[in-house]
């Protein structure tokens, strides 16, 4: 049992929460970074290699496009269908191979990244499918390369949607990170598990919930603002300019 009346209680609670929060932010941050680095190109390639789309004939071969699309689609569906707790345990051998250990906060990043990539790739996929086909046609008519198309048309056009998708992805990763206590990972989930569940401290539970809530609020707020600043196509504020613009 925790002694709430202990003079050290408040400072101990603070230290515990701070350590848990930093671990959660570290795991989430690194996992999200790798998720974006891998999931963004993955999502673009997933859409692009669909029949008749902008990457449907990589290396000049339609067969290559079909194969890439099928393989990636299969992996993404597989990743999406495995429950995180199962994935985490199944990945222990791989984690040990890659990182030398499977216990602790650092090694927990690998399963977090692997669960988040397919999720984020689907978010990117939906955003890329929304890009007006007229823009792709215009890009082709200008004789642009595939890379120029992605860099100068697809990324700017999908930017706002992808940033909002990143907010959702971070929230999911934070969610999943609460479970990594199972493989010895730390974080706020572990605080709730060891103090709240095993030692019956409701104060710790409430404190963890509040901290997580605040983190999610901040992430969502920052991403919303960033998405707005990237979106120049649908801003209501532009209407006033149009009226005064003439021809």
């Amino acid at each position: 049992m925790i002694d709430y009346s202990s003079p050290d209680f408040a400072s101990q609670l603070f230290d515990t929460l701070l350590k848990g929060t930093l671990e959660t932010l570290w795991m989430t941050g690194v996992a999200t970074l790798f998720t974006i680095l891998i999931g963004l190109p993955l999502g673009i390639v997933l859409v692009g290699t669909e029949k008749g789309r902008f990457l449907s004939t990589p290396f000049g071969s339609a067969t290559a496009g079909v194969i890439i699309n099928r393989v990636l689609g299969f992996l993404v569906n597989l990743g999406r269908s495995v429950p995180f707790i199962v994935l985490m345990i199944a990945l222990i051998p791989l984690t040990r191979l890659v990182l030398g250990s499977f216990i602790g906060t650092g090694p927990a990043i690998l399963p977090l990244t692997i669960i988040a990539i397919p999720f984020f790739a689907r978010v990117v996929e939906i955003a890329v499918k929304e890009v007006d086909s007229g823009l792709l046609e215009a890009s082709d008519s200008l004789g642009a390369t595939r890379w120029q198309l992605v860099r100068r048309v697809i990324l700017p056009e999908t930017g706002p949607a992808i940033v909002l998708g990143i907010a959702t992805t971070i929230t999911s990763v934070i969610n999943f990170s609460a479970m990594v206590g199972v493989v010895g990972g730390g974080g706020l989930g572990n605080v709730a598990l060891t103090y709240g569940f095993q030692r019956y401290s409701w104060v710790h539970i409430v404190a963890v919930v509040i901290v997580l809530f605040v983190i999610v609020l901040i992430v969502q707020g920052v991403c919303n603002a960033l998405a707005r600043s990237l979106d120049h196509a649908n801003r209501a504020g532009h209407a006033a300019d149009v009226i005064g613009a003439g021809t």
Partner: protein
Amino acid sequence: MITIEHVSRAFGGTVALGDVSLEIGRGQIFGVVGQSGAGKSTLLRTVNALERPDSGRVVVDGVQISHLRGQELRAARHGIGMVFQHFNLIGNRTVAQNVEFALEAVGHTRRDRAADAREMLDLVGLAARADAYPAQLSGGQRQRVGIARALASRPSVLLSDEATSALDPDTTRQILALLRRLSGELGLTIMLITHEMAVVKQICDAAALLEHGKVVEQGALTELIRTPGSRLAQDLFPLGDVPDIPGSAIIDLTFAGEEAQRPTITLLARTLNIDVSILGATIESIAGAQAGRTRLALPADPEVLTRAKAFFAEHDVAVEVVKAA
């Protein structure tokens, strides 16, 4: 400049183009008209190989573009600009960035791009809006950006896909005037598709009528309007339904060039000593020259009709008898 030879294209079982051949000369402004679904859009897209013909070939400036791929195709496309009905501008990039994208595609360095984009925007009268986003512009301004982007790589050919169909009549006239001016200044060959005869009337030198994927008529406008029975000419100068006037023959005349300014009809009445009534007339400026059509009622006498025809042949006016008696 653009040669389309026996091009056919089908989508599933539907024939979009059936053995289409067209020749567009250097510096010409060529209009392709037809109903929606006639295959205009598909035909236009074969010229920059956004659409591949099932058979036949397309040659632009000596290069057989219909069979190019990869880097060669991209290089050929740098010589062919295209503007679109819905502008197809990148909404999250500024006007200048939209134009710079075209220059990047050509391989210009970052430094050159900014200056060249500025120059293009100057050319279309939009330099002041370089840092605006497309959503902040009116339709006419957006199309000017589209034109600046299409011409940034200094192409010799411009393809226009219903470029004015989303614009109001005033803006349409301004955009067409801009295209006309640029075609002169830059020596552009323009192929445009439209369903509006007013567009053809305002800027085209030549036109083709496309119906169910086939070219029904084609030629220089000044020739077409002199061709009896020409559907394009009738669409360009509608005179309405033929009225039924007992005891009269009805003929349609087409004047082009200098003939439009001569008092030919009063001369006819005096020479043949007959009464002539004018049932309808329209005069337009076409391909930079005056042209017009007039519908006359003459006495229903075969001899009068024969002499009238001979008279007009002598004066170089095209005659079409729409009702003999």
